[in-house]
């Protein structure tokens, strides 16, 4: 199908206002939250219903056109990066909250609904939606599902995957399926929901998502502790968790990061080499007891200052500093390259030390802000894209940081996803067979490789190819494709 015909076909289903096809307009969609990779899509479509999504996908399926789903476009791994000659399906107009079911602690939403809207919707009833990525004021539930988003509170409450109860999904052939449970908490059969959440848009497009709601905790205690070096802060983290406490969140920021957020949002953080923000929640008595033990652990790790949030406003102030951290980097650097590796908590000190060394070796600044409780690092390599070669150098440094994390028994990503950005590192973490097994699943859902192709896996195997000795794929035999 020619492009003109494709536009007409889409417009006949979505109306002219649902199809973006002018070059200048398409350019604004050429990257998501990660600006390092840019591809201009052939077409952007803005469906308003699940039926629209089905119609779009059916056209793509019949014509063999690859497609990529996008929510608010805040992802940091290029998961919503368009594919060349492909269609970008933007779900930001599907933003209705469909059903609120407080007695069963569930809510049904469309994928374009913004994360914080969910908590806003049920706040009056004393409930909330637990996963709170720093981007929660803008990132969409559909995107959260695709990336299995975490957030500062996922140490205690888990990731998105622990809070999605079911989903209605349009598969790569345009069929509409229901995965997971409805009102009942569990569904028999394969646990496909676990595969879907975090699949980075490669298994289908969720058009309706059922989320779990939690009751707001009875008590919340938040403190901020300053340390004269990151290792001492790391010791405090180990002591707190080692002491049997599961905080709602433990976040660490280093000096460079503190500088950036101070300039940006003035949270009034103390001057220090490292800051920990620790939040405890739960029943009043438990929080009180654990809070005292947490303070003691920080003191024993030689905290230079401990501040306790006196009220919600001061708590908001602490979090304001933390949640604005990435975005605030614009204050101290033109560009940054962020990694999202996870290391075992016990390796934190050693890894941070090595990251510092690497920064010095490269002569580049690296800011650190991370979920210390579960060892999910977010090293931000600062650079200036206008200086020739600097972007490549930053990427190389970021790569070395990833390798360091892997050497210490870590993982490539905690919550941002692999996307386009980290797929080249996948073979460092997984064997060929590991990845081939993942591909089996992908191919079962999307045999023609149309659904967000080129993401997650470095050199995608063609579907039908098996791990083991090389056998030519039927498509290759027919001379229609090459393996490279």
């Amino acid at each position: 199908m020619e492009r003109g015909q494709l536009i007409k076909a889409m417009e006949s289903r979505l109306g002219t206002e649902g199809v973006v096809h002018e070059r200048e307009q398409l350019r604004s969609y050429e990257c998501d939250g990660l600006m390092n990779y840019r591809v201009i899509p052939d077409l952007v479509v803005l469906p308003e219903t699940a039926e629209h999504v089905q119609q779009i996908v059916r056209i793509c399926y019949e014509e063999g056109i690859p497609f990529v789903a996008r929510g608010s476009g805040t992802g940091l791994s290029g998961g919503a990066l368009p594919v060349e000659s492909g269609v970008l399906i933007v779900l930001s107009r599907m933003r209705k909250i469909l059903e609120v079911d407080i007695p069963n602690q569930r809510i049904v939403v469309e994928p374009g609904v913004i994360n914080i809207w969910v908590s806003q919707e049920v706040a009056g009833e004393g409930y909330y939606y637990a996963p709170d990525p720093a981007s929660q004021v803008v990132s969409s539930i559909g995107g959260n599902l695709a990336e299995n988003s975490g957030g500062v509170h996922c140490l205690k409450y888990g990731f998105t995957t622990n809070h999605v109860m079911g989903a209605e999904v349009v598969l790569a052939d345009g069929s509409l399926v229901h995965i997971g449970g409805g009102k009942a908490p569990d569904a028999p059969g394969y646990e496909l929901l676990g595969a879907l959440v975090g699949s980075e848009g490669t298994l289908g497009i969720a058009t309706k998502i059922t989320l779990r709601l939690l009751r707001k905790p009875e008590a919340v205690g938040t403190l901020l502790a300053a340390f004269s070096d990151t290792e001492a802060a790391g010791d405090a983290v180990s002591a707190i968790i080692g002491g049997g406490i599961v905080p709602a969140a433990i976040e660490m920021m280093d000096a460079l990061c503190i500088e950036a957020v101070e300039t940006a949002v003035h949270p009034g953080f103390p001057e220090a080499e490292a800051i920990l923000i620790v939040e405890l929640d739960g029943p009043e008595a438990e929080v009180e007891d654990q809070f005292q033990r947490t303070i003691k652990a920080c003191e024993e790790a030689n905290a230079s200052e401990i501040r306790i949030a006196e009220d919600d406003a001061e708590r908001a102030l602490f979090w304001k500093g933390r949640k604005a951290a990435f975005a605030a980097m614009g204050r101290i650097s033109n560009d940054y390259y962020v990694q999202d590796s996870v290391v075992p908590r016990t390796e934190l000190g050693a890894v941070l030390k090595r990251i510092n060394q690497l920064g010095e070796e490269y002569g580049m600044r690296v800011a650190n802000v991370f979920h210390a409780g579960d060892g999910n690092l977010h090293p931000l390599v600062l650079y200036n894209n206008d200086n020739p070669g600097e972007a490549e150098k930053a990427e190389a440094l970021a790569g070395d940081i990833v390798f360091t994390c892997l050497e210490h028994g870590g993982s490539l990503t905690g919550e941002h996803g692999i996307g386009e950005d980290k797929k080249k590192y996948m073979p460092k973490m997984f064997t060929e067979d590991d990845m081939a097994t993942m591909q089996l699943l992908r191919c079962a859902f999307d045999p023609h490789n149309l659904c967000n192709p080129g993401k997650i896996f470095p050199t995608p195997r063609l579907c039908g190819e098996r791990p083991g000795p090389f056998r030519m794929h039927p498509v290759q035999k027919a001379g229609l494709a090459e393996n490279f």
Partner: protein
Amino acid sequence: MTEQDRPDPRQSGNRYDATDAAERRDDQSGTTREQAAAGAIGAGNPQDVGQSTLAATTESLQHTMGKDRPESGSYTFPAFDSHHPPEKDLIDDCVHCGFCLPTCPTYVLFGEEMDSPRGRIYLMNKGLTEEPMNDTMVRHWDLCLGCMACVTACPSGVQYDKLIEATRAQVERRYDRRADDKAFREMIFQLFPYRSRLRLAAGPLRLYQRFGIDKKLRKAGVMSRLPARMRAMEALMPKLGKEEKIPEHTSPTGERRRRVGVLTGCVQQVFFSQVNSATVRVLAAEGCEVVAPKNQGCCGALSTHAGREEESLNFARKTIDTFERENLDNVVVNAAGCGSTMKEYAYLLRDDPEYAERAKRFSAKVKDVSEFLQEMGTVAERHPLPVAAAYHDACHLAHQQGVRQQPRKALKQIPGMEIKEITEAEVCCGSAGIYNMVEPEPAAELGERKAKNVLKTGAQMIVTSNPGCMLQIQASLKKMGREIPMAHPTEVLDASIRGEPVETLLSGRGLQG
């Protein structure tokens, strides 16, 4: 330029130059640290970003992506010339995080990237080198309301205000608008900045609809957008009451504490002269000698925000000339849009050797009336006004000037007064200077959205600091059949200081649409 040698705008003296997004947002004068914290991720309080799941109607979408775009076929490459293009350095501050999206009125309505601040900045960047200035690019910049909610929301401190103003000036210079579009805009700018013309026009606009001229025009098939725009303009026009004359000189009550000038404005004086009277009375009661120069004209806000550079600079120069003569401690402004532009003079006239320094001195003296009163401290006795009022943040006061707490504080000082907060306070009401006249469809949707949120508060009256907002919200409420008395904060203060009964305030002086 490296990080180190980029001058820190916060280190210079002028307020407009001197402040950036975060500082304007977290303006510590009159703002507690806690409230600043509540401004955490972008909004007056963290719960306050675009909350409703209401989307735009298909009709409205036709104006951004559909058949109703005013296209002229104009094409210029590259998009910008070298006279103040949107600055690359400022564009580079944007890290593409998207935090601005949910506070942007057009993103809230349309849900598409090109009509978000992030998308518009992206297009500006492309316009610097790779893309032309054409119908498509201009359409998405035109659709920006200039509300600057994104400036508040941005954690990276992107100065979108400067970027869009620079872009708009380039558009006006380098883009050839379609004839009807051009004519309509020209008409607005020949009308609104001039009191006498505005006074004359208010009547005929009503006749325009009464005699069904718009229907005839539509039937004739000419000037496709004109009828809708004229209807919008007519719907906004309130009935003209008797204009209250503002004395050139007013003596303070008691000892003189300050000598201040007052901008009486164009729209403000023609439609809301009672606001100016109240402002003068309140200032005098608080010990100010008040000067309202007779020959003052338009401050140039409308022109500045529309990119009419030369015109706006001339208005700015003339305003400086007029007030400079009076040897004033401060220039007090009661219209949010005017105040923000006058604070910006120093930046606007930075290239003018004769005016640059003078503009800097002038801008430093400009204060919004609520800001001024809180800084000076109040002495006049407040009498009780038992009333529940919804306070609406005018964008150019809250986002552009960072004045949020001062008017609330002033109102709360009145015994018996209860202030109700409006949900989605950060989202523009759709007035936005000339926006509700040139882009009536999205403006009407935003107006309705705001009106609904106002009604939800259950307040007996609305208080807001900008004539444009008053006209817009009142027109929206009227369409819904739910008119509510409105007042400027100074009118409320005036009633309280004078000990007027609350009924007088609620009788809705001057705003019987």
